[in-house]
């Protein structure tokens, strides 16, 4: 479980960092719109929220990868508890 948590949280953290740098170098947070309204947070707040947003999205992708990595055996295991 601990490994899976690391597999989900760590690579997503690294990629979120890269995405954060790339995105906010190109886009000024003060020029963003949120639900049609200009973003009124401070730049620091937008950067921080942005980072956790990226992290969450990347973690979702890592989680999905982990989820699909389960072998057929593991997926079927609960159906034949007494098979072996």
């Amino acid at each position, binding site marked *: 479980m601990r490994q899976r948590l*690391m597999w989900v949280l760590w690579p997503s953290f690294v990629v979120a960092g890269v995405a954060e740098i790339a995105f906010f*170098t190109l886009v000024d947070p003060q020029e963003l719109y949120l639900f049609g309204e200009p973003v009124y947070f*401070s730049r*620091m*707040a937008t950067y*921080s929220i942005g980072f956790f947003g990226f992290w969450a999205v990347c973690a979702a992708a890592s989680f999905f990868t982990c989820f699909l990595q389960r072998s057929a055996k593991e997926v079927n295991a609960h159906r034949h508890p007494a*098979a072996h």
Partner: protein
Amino acid sequence: MSSPNPVPHTAAEETVEQSLYEVSRKIYPRSVTGWFATWRWVFVWLTQLVFYGCCWLPWNGRQAMLFDLVERKFYIFGLVFWPQDVFFLAVLLIISAYSLFLFTAVGGRLWCGYACPQTVYTSIFLYIEEKVEGNRMARMKLDSLPLSLRKVYLKAGKHAIWIIFSLWTGFTFVGYFTPIKTLTTGLLHLDLGPWEIFWILFYGLATYGNAGWLREQVCKYMCPYARFQGVMFDPDTLTVTYDRERGEPRGSRARKTDHREKGLGDCIDCQLCVAVCPTGIDIRDGLQYECIGCAACIDVCDQVMDKMDYPRGLIRYSTENAIEKHWGWRDILGHVIRPRVLVYSGVLMVIVIAFLWGLAVKPELRVDVLRDRAALAREVEGGLIENVYRLQVMNVSEIPQRYEISVQGLKDIQLIGPRVVAVAPATTQALTLQVRVPPESGKTGASTIYFDLRSVSNPRIAVHEKARFLLP
């Protein structure tokens, strides 16, 4: 599985699954002294003096090293980088990567062993741990003892020092992104912004967790470099190597024994190389990806060899070829220059030269011209056609500047609005300008005109910026 029958879990499969990430046992590295340990401390001091010190250096009335995220400007001593300069950042990353490739190809994991923050902070945290809890044996004993007042006292003391050190590290880190003097004032008046507090705690916690708890697990399970550094290795790469031929068969013996007579090699199997290893491996098993090249085993083995009156270097920096072909230092150095190293150095040199050239010719003035789309072209008094422009004048230098503005490109072109604009250091000034021409100056449609801005004090600082003029 292609087999139609359900195949039961075999023991072997389960071992494979588990041994990939075995339950990690706590490693108690024995502290070590010697040539390489001294070099590691030199690098710990150097890197940390730079890290904790650089943010306090003043330059031109500001912080010398400041990555001002709020103002979106990076200051590195005399240089100011704007978001438009992202190219430099990208090239800098490429230079770092290529330097790492080059170092790795020649000297193996020099980065990991001496300069990586993970190694540096683990060294510092281990030093604190040893000062509070005692040496390796004392620490192992303390951990095995039941809870007592002394144990709580020692553990609490260690963690308190770790936490204070981590918070200072977090504070310093944030001090590179928010001016550290503002941050200090905020801290003294207990008036820090919520995000500053958050990031100080976040980075502090990361330091505490990585150097205090995770340690070698970061290198073994989290570091991508540890996984791909082998790609840069070849048989002429220097690595920490155990001389199997000389050491085997290993075995304990009395100091006075003639071990050759007993058919023994030079390794006395004292296990000290394992005890000092921060990642808990046995270097005698050969090169492993867990080996961070810290050379602690070399230091400790040399001490053992000295005690036994055997020559030093049973474990030493050597190359695969050198061990196999019994090369000396002269041969090893002779093989440093080889195609891989030449290619890495060549590419690195080209990029560094391009980077420095780019820095040297980095413009000190930038101008963005935007035609006012709302107004299009309109006719004004005297039958002239007017277009309106918004200019963003960026003084990228650190000196206040005044720029003369002129416009050319169409016959009898006139500029209405300010002719000179003053821009403070490292700031942007927006201004609106009207440009007028007689209708017969050009064809109907878009024509090209040029705005010229020239510094009053230094005519070499100038920009010739293209714009489009619409004629109805």
